[in-house]
């Protein structure tokens, strides 16, 4: 059996690991457009903050590949799939034949269409190379402009603040983390970040990146806002969302919506070809629709489930759940499910148990369908489980509405 996996991050690696545990003899090849063993992209901000070394970011070391007899082909980008011939082509001319194929290509930052976006000193923050580039552009005392108020942007802004830069965050809406948090939670986090020196420009957008020519290369120097204001910038980080890496699939016959469409076995519309992770559009537990919840735990679970199916041990993927966790200056925040749901069919409970403490619980009938915890997030997993398992709450609901989170909610 020949297994080919495109992508060497959470979904790819967990899939390879799972396949090997079920199929001791098959040939497993991973193709990666990067030059590193598997590392955690979510950790790039920790690297940027100087909190961890490059080695620490590796989720699996090189021995892992050797020990599991997994062939890792780095530095090559897949350019196309021939589903009839069961072949994958890469940009350096290699052709990989497969019996089972997993597409775990992840996603890429969306770069804004504004003047100067192509300059040196303008980065997304996704890869280790991005982080290295940012670090090279600006050190302690430098100025950074972060575009976007989402999770990636704020993690980047937080990292740069910790690294000693002055940071301006440009948020087009009126609140940060608008996908994950409600206004109340966002305000607590925003105030905390501001109190630690983060400059946030709400209701603003970058109109243009201006720069100088240094060594013959246009290098970013400032960001001009739609409000007319100009902010100095040694480095500009773009955090305006990501888009699944599916471009190479055009013409392959594999159906792509926002991401690659997969069924309950994580199989694409073409047999023996599977997709997992941030590139895949799989079942969402809450909505019953197919969507992308692009976070590490979902990618790793999808990789594991896809691996099983590929290795002939069929399993139904239970579906993904939107959730995320952030910790800024010691204030932990976790949100999951559909925490921002509003409307008559929902029951929303907001609790403010103390300074820097906030709980938002969203119920639909007898079920919890979303929550936000700001501060003291211990036991959040119990709530996640209530959502995931659709546990009928009964009398536990009142307890939960008073903010008491204990294991007996599951009993």
């Amino acid at each position, binding site marked *: 059996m020949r297994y080919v996996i495109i992508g060497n991050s*959470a979904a790819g690696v*967990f899939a390879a690991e799972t396949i090997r545990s079920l199929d001791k003899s098959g040939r497993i090849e991973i193709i990666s457009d990067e030059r590193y063993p598997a590392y*955690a992209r*979510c*950790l790039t901000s*920790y690297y940027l903050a100087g*909190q*961890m070394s490059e080695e*620490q*970011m*590796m*989720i*699996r070391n090189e021995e892992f590949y050797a020990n599991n007899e997994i062939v890792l082909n780095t530095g090559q980008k897949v350019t196309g799939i021939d589903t009839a011939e069961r072949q994958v082509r890469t940009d350096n001319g290699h052709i990989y034949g497969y019996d089972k194929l997993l597409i775990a290509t992840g996603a890429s930052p969306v770069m804004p269409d504004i003047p100067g976006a192509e300059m040196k000193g303008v980065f997304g923050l996704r890869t280790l190379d991005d982080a290295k580039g940012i670090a090279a552009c600006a050190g302690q005392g430098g100025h950074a402009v972060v575009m976007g108020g989402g999770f990636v942007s704020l993690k980047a802004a937080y990292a740069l603040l910790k690294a000693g830069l002055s940071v301006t965050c440009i948020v087009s809406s009126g609140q940060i983390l608008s996908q994950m948090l409600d206004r109340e939670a966002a305000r607590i986090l925003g105030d905390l970040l501001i109190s630690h020196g983060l400059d946030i420009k709400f209701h603003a957008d970058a109109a243009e990146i201006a720069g100088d020519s240094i060594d013959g290369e246009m290098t970013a120097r400032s960001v001009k806002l739609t409000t007319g204001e100009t902010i100095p910038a040694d480095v500009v980080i773009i955090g305006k969302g990501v888009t699944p890496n599916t471009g190479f699939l055009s013409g392959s016959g594999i159906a792509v919506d926002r991401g690659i469409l997969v069924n309950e076995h994580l199989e694409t519309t073409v047999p023996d070809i599977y997709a997992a992770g941030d590139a895949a559009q799989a079942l969402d537990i809450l909505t019953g629709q197919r969507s992308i919840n692009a976070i*590490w*735990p979902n990618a*790793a*679970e999808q990789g*594991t489930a896809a691996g099983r199916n590929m290795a002939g041990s069929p399993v139904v993927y239970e579906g993904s759940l939107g*959730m*995320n*966790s952030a*910790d800024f200056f*010691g204030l*932990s925040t*976790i949100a*999951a499910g559909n925490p921002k749901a509003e409307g008559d069919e929902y029951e929303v409970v907001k609790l403010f148990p103390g300074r820097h403490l906030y709980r938002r619980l969203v119920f639909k009938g007898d079920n919890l369908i979303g929550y936000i915890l700001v501060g003291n*997030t*211990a*036991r*959040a*997993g*119990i709530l*996640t*489980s209530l959502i*995931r*398992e659709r546990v009928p709450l009964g*009398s*536990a609901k009142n*307890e939960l509405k008073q903010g008491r*989170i*204990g*294991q*007996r909610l*599951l*009993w």
Partner: protein
Amino acid sequence: MKQILVKTERCIGCKSCELACSTVHSGSKDFLAAVLKRERPVRRVTVETNRENTVNIPVQCRQCREPKCVTACMTGAMHLDEATGLVLNREEKCVGCWMCVMVCPYGVIVPNEEDKKAVKCDQCLSGGHNPACVKACPTGAIKFIEISEFDKNRKKEFLTKFVAGEEA
């Protein structure tokens, strides 16, 4: 493999296990010394009780065979140790992102805010694999025992009562 199992009818909710767990994870390793030094050790066990307060259970990591915390861990710190069957956290790799806290269905991974490390029960592996909570339990409610043996004992207890006519 031995597991930490509970005879719930013997748990009186005294929380001695909680304090013993805090103590072995303190710097002093001595209860009174740790209190006097105002240490803040993080315990890995919590005594939970049902709504009727008729059943108490000390809850700690269940050492899942398919641990959600491990798939959620983006650093590879949290892992399933093949040799012991335990879910362990390599603290040197842990960055305190709390993804594991977010997904653990039992709520037994504790975010140690001070060190920014996720903390969980390792059945006192580093201390000789002899769980402090078990030793501390004054009623013998918490057992460190093979599941099969625990099961056998429970069946025997039931049958003894059944034969004696105490259990219908």
